[in-house]
């Protein structure tokens, strides 16, 4: 049995996420689409907090809602004039888009509702079943090389980010 507060938070965040996902792909203005995406990302961060992953929620807010959104707004203002008429983004191929997204949504929802395992445990039970994740454990997972530890991917990610910095500068630089 979950607490009433959790259920209320869930409904508020779920409705916000659904509404703003729709608006982010249907609005005509590019800067508004970016703002709606920001709300969706923040809603996801609230879900992470609610599911007991505090570190991940903080990362989501810092990297996605902070870093990536700044990049988006920066790029939008570099490539669009902020006055009314030129910031519009048209859409085409509506039929194909509606068909593809509708088919995938219906298939996924059917699959979800026919899976008995999905209704087994409640949030409160599963939060009790797992112990709270401390920063100590997260540090050990990222710096160990044993089973279920991820030192090699962690190093690979750092090389990837370095390559990304160099590539970004090389691509965007003027001759």
């Amino acid at each position: 049995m979950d607490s009433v507060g959790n259920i209320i938070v869930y409904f508020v965040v779920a409705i916000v996420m659904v509404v703003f996902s729709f608006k982010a792909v249907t609005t005509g203005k590019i800067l508004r689409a970016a703002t709606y995406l920001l709300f969706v990302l923040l809603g996801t961060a609230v879900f992470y907090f609610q599911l007991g992953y505090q570190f991940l929620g903080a990362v989501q807010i810092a990297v996605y809602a902070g870093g990536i959104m700044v990049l988006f707004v920066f790029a939008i203002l570099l490539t669009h004039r902020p006055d009314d008429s030129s910031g519009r983004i048209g859409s085409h191929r509506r039929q194909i888009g509606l068909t593809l997204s509708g088919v995938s949504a219906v298939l996924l929802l059917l699959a979800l509702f026919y899976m008995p395992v999905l209704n087994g445990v409640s949030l409160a039970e599963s939060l009790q079943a797992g112990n709270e994740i401390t920063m100590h454990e997260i540090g050990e997972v990222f710096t160990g090389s044993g089973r279920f530890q991820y030192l090699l991917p962690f190093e690979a990610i750092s090389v990837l980010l370095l390559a990304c910095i160099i590539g970004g500068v090389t691509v965007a630089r003027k001759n």
Partner: protein
Amino acid sequence: MDLSMLWYLVPSVVMLACGIYGFVTRKNLIAILISLELMLNSADLNFIVFNRFLFPGSMDGMVFTLFAIAIAAAETAIAIALIINIYRAIGNTDITEINKMKF
């Protein structure tokens, strides 16, 4: 009333469907990138939900989501560098007008 796994997966499905719709129908490169972020975000949420409800003792889903967030940040930075470069070359970011390469 219990908050089961299904409750968290339904918003994720909606996000994925919206992302697919935007990815197909948008004409602007940055708007396409925004739809892509929606789809990535829905995949991240799935990782976390499956980890919490099916394997509450381990934290591999969380680690995968952290890596996915890092890769998404790198991918967005490169994509935006490309978009700015395209804007410099042809003056806008509309995909219906990007139909010529250099030669």
